């Protein structure tokens, strides 16, 4: 992975030196194992701060909307799809961006690793698909594939779909994954079981909105839950209000969600919020053969009408 970092630094330096961009958005080394911090670099002398490893899960597309600068941005597969979505939705222009594409082999789930190890982790290194964690008097080697974020484990677009420069050869895309096993399990439930499933899922939500704020799609100047005239949703942790927040947010992401997992990664209490968006993603795939953020040239299904659009579901 350090070759990746070297490549990113080199490109960043070149872009800043020759004035192609005003800033490069990437990651700097975290203060703890298993998490790196999104950062910007404006000074070519400081590109060495940029790092790359399997703890760069945060979706950097989230840092782009409405920025005025010319920006070099490091982008994994999912970030690149959210960048496409931003461009299509006029949140930033293609001309402002220099996209540094990173073929991705998946980002690890820090909580999964902590759970698997069960002891405090003091340092982490990775090589050849293995993650080595060490702590007080122990060392453990884990299979990276088994420690991936749930969304990364089923990702089928690991290579950036749009870029100005890619830092390495494309990685092999995963083909033998069932992207919707979890959704199908919920679809198979009777209404009561389904209701209980979602009730349990949301139990413990503290309405902090980390899921919303981590999501690149949630850039509305005023989110519907924050609106006070009229006030659509109550602000306490009342179950109905919490549910309303999650269901409506998911609908706002319909046909736009790239399953980047940023929402889930951010939740401080570990709620698998992708359970809501994935059903809509599956519907979009099945009804409109649509995957979000794959092309700058096709309008998303929810803002176009075609006479042949399927309408079985409203009959």
């Amino acid at each position, binding site marked *: 992975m350090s070759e990746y970092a070297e490549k990113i630094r080199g490109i960043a330096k070149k872009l800043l030196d020759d004035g192609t961009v005003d800033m490069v958005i990437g990651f700097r080394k975290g203060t703890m194992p298993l998490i790196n*911090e999104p*950062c910007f670099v404006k000074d070519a002398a400081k590109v060495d701060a940029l790092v790359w490893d399997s703890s760069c899960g*945060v979706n950097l597309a989230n840092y782009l909307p409405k920025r005025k600068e010319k920006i070099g941005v490091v982008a994994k597969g999912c970030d690149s799809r959210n960048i496409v979505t931003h461009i299509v939705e006029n949140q930033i222009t293609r001309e402002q961006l220099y996209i540094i594409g990173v073929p991705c082999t998946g980002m690890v789930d820090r909580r999964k690793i902590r*759970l698997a190890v069960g002891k405090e982790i003091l340092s982490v290194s990775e090589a050849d698909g293995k993650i080595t964690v060490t702590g007080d008097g122990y060392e453990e080697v884990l299979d990276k594939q088994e420690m991936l974020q749930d969304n990364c484990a089923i990702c089928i677009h690991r290579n950036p779909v749009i870029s100005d420069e890619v830092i390495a050869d494309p990685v092999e895309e995963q083909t033998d994954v069932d992207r919707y096993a979890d959704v199908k399990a919920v679809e198979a439930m009777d209404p009561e079981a389904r209701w209980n499933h979602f009730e349990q899922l949301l139990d413990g939500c503290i309405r902090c909105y*980390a899921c919303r704020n981590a999501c690149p799609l949630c850039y509305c100047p005023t989110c519907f839950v924050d609106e006070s005239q009229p006030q659509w949703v109550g602000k306490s942790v009342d179950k109905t209000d919490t549910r309303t927040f999650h269901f409506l947010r998911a609908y706002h992401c319909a046909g736009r969600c790239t399953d980047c997992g940023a929402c889930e990664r951010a939740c*401080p209490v570990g709620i698998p919020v992708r359970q809501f968006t994935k059903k809509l993603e599956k519907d979009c795939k099945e009804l409109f053969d649509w995957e979000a953020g794959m092309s700058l040239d096709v309008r998303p299904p929810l803002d176009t009408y075609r006479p042949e659009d399927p309408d079985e579901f409203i009959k």
Partner: protein
Amino acid sequence: MRVIKIDKKDWESGVEKLSGDYSLYGPVKQGAFHNFAPLEKGQMPDLDYVNTRLSPKSVVYPQCETMFEYTLDENQPDHHVNKEIPKDYSPRAILGIRPCDVKAIDLVNINFDNPQYQDPWWVQRRAALTTVALACNNPCSTCFCTTAGTGPFDDSSADVLLADMGDYYLAKVMTEKGEALVGKAGFDQDGSAEAGAIDDAAKAAEAKITSKIETGKLGDKVTTELYDADFWEDIAFACINCGTCTYLCPTCWCFDIQDEVQGSDGCRMRNWDTCMSALFTLHGTGHNPRPNKTARVRQRFMHKLKYYVDKYENGIACVGCGRCVQQCPVNIDIRRVCDLMNRFEPGKECA
């Protein structure tokens, strides 16, 4: 203060005796982590934990609480009158709270119970509370309590401090409330002969704390210069203004007041608020004096590490529990920010 000894085999029966006199709260496992929750009759606190995901502040200061109820029905004689709703102030005890979290309750008290203001609900709940703290023999790498005004064996805020000695606890009974509780539990074996062992364990635990912050120079900084420091944009960049840090924090005390009306019945409630949210400072006019995330991130750190320091002169508004460090989704680390603030000198770049 006196020291008593509690054999672990007597612990459960003692806790059971308490449940008649107190509502008990303690750490319980909820999925992958622990949180404080009410203990059912016969349920024991799970003391095999390092720190809870959410702080126990909600026992005294719930995330959401209804303060008043009213009716808008003009046929009712008392329509449009806020009526305070009755609350439960019966004795409660938190078993196994960490010393830093008890310290945090004292710290928040400065806001809710002071010569100017006394928040009735906080004051009464706190008066009803007895804390049985559990000293940390094995602090984790993100704990920086010893340089945040407390420590793994800090006994200055708790009513009782338990030190785990293997087969038994040594308990420092610090207050009258603590005496009442151990009396009701039937814990009365003298432990004074072993008091020295607590000090030894405290030294050993403190020595394990590797994470430290420097706060000594914060008070001397010129507020406006620190406010205008060049590092805020860099620090704030990654922040998504989610509020995780403040909701998990044992010392964050801000709240919002909301009215909710259904039909003609209304209630006025207060909910935790967070200075990370744009709504926190949004005026009715639409003007927002903290218009962007850099301003909001600066507020959080300036409040904890400068305004509070200057106003109360008793240290920082942080007990070093490390929750925000561990759970911030983008790794904004108060230790790093504190270091930048403490080292800050106007005109010198230090980011």
